[in-house]
């Protein structure tokens, strides 16, 4: 199982970016790149090539699901596991995310203290 090192966070809310950054970098020790929208992420990912992408659903411009689809269409990025991190977690939403191929869903608000651990668990689950 490859080690989880590089994580891409796609999130339009700066405050959440800040919290997540502390959780993942400071507490989790991951290398983190943050993008504020779908288009930006699509542009950044081929260069960064993260091990895992944390993707918000509701974003101005290209939203999470569309971003995921776009990633899947690009052979370079099509195999990167994606976790949706979202406040939209009604059962129907969750099953939709799963059907799109998300490896996990982290509902907002998340616990910053355990976020890294949760992400790690999902990672291991996706590779187990």
């Amino acid at each position, binding site marked *: 199982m490859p080690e989880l090192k590089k994580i891409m966070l796609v999130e339009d*809310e700066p*405050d*959440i970016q*800040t*919290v*997540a950054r*502390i*959780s993942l970098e*400071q*507490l989790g020790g991951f290398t983190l790149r943050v993008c504020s929208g779908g288009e930006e992420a699509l542009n950044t990912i081929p260069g960064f090539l993260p091990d895992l992408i944390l993707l918000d659903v*509701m974003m101005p411009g290209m939203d999470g*699901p*569309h971003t995921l*689809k776009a990633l899947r*269409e690009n052979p370079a990025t099509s195999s990167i596991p994606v976790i949706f991190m979202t*406040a*939209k977690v*009604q*059962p*129907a*939403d969750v099953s*939709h995310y799963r*059907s*799109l191929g998300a490896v996990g869903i982290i509902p*907002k*608000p*998340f*616990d*910053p*203290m355990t976020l890294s651990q949760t992400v790690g668990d999902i990672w291991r689950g996706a590779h187990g």
Partner: protein
Amino acid sequence: MKTKHQIRVLQIGLSVGLFTLALGWAGWHSLQDQSQRLLWRATMMASLIDSVAAYDKVHSPNQPLISTLGQVRESLEKNQSLFERGFLYLVGDTPEGLRVYLAEVHGQLAPVGHLEGNSPFLAPLAQGLAGEKGVKLISVDGKLQVSAYAPIPTHRLVLLLGFPLWDRVAPFLWLELISLLAGGLAFWLGVWLPLRQARREAALRELEGRVGRLMTRSSSDGVVFINAQGLVQWINPAVETLFGYQPGELMGKNVTLLMPEEHARKHDEYLRRYLAGAPARVIGIGREVTGRRKDGSEFPLHLNISDLKDSEPGVRFAGVLRDLSEITTVEAQLRAAKNSLAKAQAIGHMGSWEWDIPSGGLTWTDEVFRIFGHEPQAFPATYPAFLEAIHPDDREKVTQGVGNAVEKDIPYRVEHRVVRPSGEIRTVLETGEVSRDAAGTPLRMVGTVQDITDLKAIQNELTTRAVQQSALKEILEKVMEGMPSQRLLEHGLSVLGYTLDMNFGHVFLADPKTGHLTPTAAMGWPLEHLPPLKPEDISRSFPSFAANNPTPIPLEGKTALPAHMTRARIQGGLCVILPGKTRPMGLLGVYTSQPREFSREDLHFAESMARMLATALDRERIGAQLEQSMAQLATVVTSAPIMLVAVNGNNQITLVRGRAAKELGFNPQEMEGKSFHEVFSGQPMLDRALNQARDLESETVEVDLGDNIFEVRVSPALEARGRKGGVITVWVEITERKKIERMKSEFIATVSHELRTPLTSIRGSLGLITGGVTGKLPEQTLAMLNIAYNNSERLVRLINDILDIEKIESGNLVFNHRPLDLHQVLVQAVESNQGYAREYGVILEKEIAENETWVMADPDRMIQVLSNLISNAVKFSPRGERVVVRQLVKGKKIRVEVEDHGAGIPKEFQPRVFSKFAQADSSDTRKKGGTGLGLSICRAIVERHGGVIGFSSGPQGGTVFHFELPVYQPLELAHTEENPDHDQVLVVEDNADDIRQVTEILNGLGFKAMVATSAEEAKNLLARYHFQGVLMDLSLPGENGLQLIHEIQQDTRTRHLPVVVLSAYIDSGVRKISGGLASVVDMVDKPFSPDRLVQALSKTGWAVGPHRPVILHVEDDKDVLDFVAATFGNSAEVLQAKTLAAARAILETRTVDLMIVDQQLPDGDGLDLTAHLPATQKHKLPVVVLSAFHLPQGAEERVSSVFMKYESDPGKLKQVVNNLLRKTQASLPEAPLHASTLNG
């Protein structure tokens, strides 16, 4: 001995008789035989002579005949023995007369000479000369001779041979005579004598028998014969009965058995001494002694013993006994009977008398004296004394009656009055009978006198009562007929007055407003003469009026009467109140100008009449009120913004009312009379509710008619006499409400989501700070931040719960039901709450049976419920206490309990436990960090799983929350027959809500949806799988939907696929372009209703929509109903009936394609439905039995297929049903079953 002797004599007699007969027969036979032989010889000889003579005539014509005869004689002589003691003549007819040539007499042959003219031979000769032969009996010299004659034609000769009859017959006759004598002697000795003897003996026996019977058997006297030793030789049944022994039991026993012991001991000795010559003390003298019965009891008897000496062998003494106890009893009974008679006469007030007609003597029993008012036997009874006692007016009647009886023999039966010395008059009934001598002269007259005064009184009373009863009945009939109250009151008044013999009467009715009494009916007075009575008049004249009590009050002299009554000089009467519900309704009175007393029955009658009239008045008032309120109701219904549609048992609309009907464009007049299904077609929920209402279950369903949405309350309408079948539907339009509800849901969803975003930052930041990521903080600061953090957490929970509650209330909460091992869910819930429990210092334990416990449930929701209950229990437990999660299986239910040892739930709070925002102590909400919504959500979830939730909390603290879910029977799903090509539809759609909706509808129709969120993905799937068709959104990410349709049409593998377009942006251009595409069968605007989509799908040629087969499922178990409904989903219209009656109602109105029946229904066997199907049903309606029991013998031919409930496999069921339907051309859509269908 005698008999044997007789038989032997008889035998001898018979033998002799037989011998005599044989002898006679032999004699006769011998005689005949000899005659025949004689004739034969004569014939032979004659022909010999004839032939010799003929020869001589030819060869020596001159030889005289006589020489020939000589030869004949010679030859005859040789055979002389033959003719011994016989004779032979040869007689010739010559010109000289008849000549006898040869004669044999005593063995000598000699010429005889002429035959005399009186010769006995002439007759046979004449015959012989005529050429005949034969035998004749002739008398020669006084002796009978047998003579045979034969002709010798050549010489006109006749040969006569003969022998004397007597010689031959005599020996036989002698023998005959002797044997006859012997036979006669034998008969006399063997038959006649014994017969005479027997007859004499029989007569003797009969006489003996008759005497014996008289003496012994039929007599109640006992007869005992004993021998010299005292042993019983013979007894008659009377003795056995008398002493209580079984027949024959005493035979041979000592007679001492029948005596008391002290006698018995001395008896043998006495007998011995008597036989030795001692003087007789008992023998020959009758006396009273004591007998002992078998059971030891003793009784008096009269005994007479005779010494028979030696007159009969083996018997010495004869005893005749008679039971004296019975005689004593009879005497006593006779005395008792006399006493009883006297008593009876006294009780029945009936005396008897006897009149000796010739002497005129009269005897009265004591009671006659009493009836006539005298001391018993106070004076000698005489006929004049009798007449004196009779009422003067009745005397003639009595004397006439007596005269008729004596002279004309007419039975004496006279009712008359008696005047007692005290002057009291009593009514008596006398009867009597005259007895006469043979000449018809009257001798005696015997009769009875009965005091019937009381009886008469009762009879009169009964007659009055009967009249009153029939009067009441008549009034009741009038009431029932609905006679108007005015007439009824008049009628009732006159009936009461007439029956009680009154000539005045009045009825006043109370005016509820003024309290005045208004005259309403009158008898004896003109109505207009009656004054209205003011309250003060009433209280003065009828003080009892206020009591509202219909007990009649007889008029008393003191009462101040109203003027009209005073004027009529009313002296007596009754006044009755007509009782109302709360206040009296009026007053009824009947009066007379005589003082009058009333019996209890009269009062009762008046009261009954008053009550009945009051009831009728009340009924009329209620009727008027009812009419009024009906009118009001009709106004309300007509003007209410609802629509009321009544449906009868034949699904025909019988009534349409309500403002909504017109406002919504319905035309009530047009709808009434039409079929409900015709007017509201394609509403399966409505149909189902209609059927349920026929099972007497009300339901509210939502009905979307396109432009308007309705909430329809479907309730059973119980028609007259409880007949089922009618249904009332109340339609309330909720289009606007639904819109608002939808807006509210959306608003709450949006707000919740929007709230979470800032909360994420707040909670995240606080979490990091309190987590110590930013470094150590002063304790106070940390405490404050913890408060902020905890409250942000609570806010999140609150938002989640509000969202849940909103969904529950709007009915949008989606459950992902699937078969679930609840055991595992429990383990998981307990595990995930261990951390929480530790936080509170509470020990969380589970007591779970290890067996698998399956329920049909949504796992996430189950976890939610369990977590909620567990966290509640933990929160409200003191530190160190235990919280136990338990799981029990109770029959068909699984029960989960969560037990805590907290303070318990205060009694006053208990009713509100499951209410929203309810917590026992509002401070708890903040202290315990709850939202007050958890239990409310739990209840909603459990109830949506078909379960129940509850709790028990003791006053000592400790609470157990529990919920129960129905056990799910795991079903084996059919995977084998699955063919993905036949049921798969490609859905090209990127909107999650639309995907969900479309998928649900497709699943419901029995299709499997495969989703592509882009054109690219769709093309991928199209290349890899086979589909039935495509449902496509036009606005897709990336490639345009229209482009995709083009490509589908280009590809030879997909060009046949029907496409349904879904889009929010179908403008005219798009419609034109895509409409031109051959594969696009329909275009559906978003947002769309399920019906619209189904309608579009029906155009694809898939079997959906109105052509669905109709299956009638008859079953009383809700789980099985649900199972079958889920099995077929929307692929068939499943009509459900829980009873045979409901099923029959459906069969009357709907044509079904197939029936699935259970055998055990509340009102019978489902198979019975096959017996009498209505004519509207198919001739061979396929019937599938889904039952827990095997079919009874002989039922197979009525059934197409059988499924056992415990092994029913939805896939197989569907397959079989489809096969059966295909045979009747109504097949289901080609779609094997999937888990999704079941779970839906």
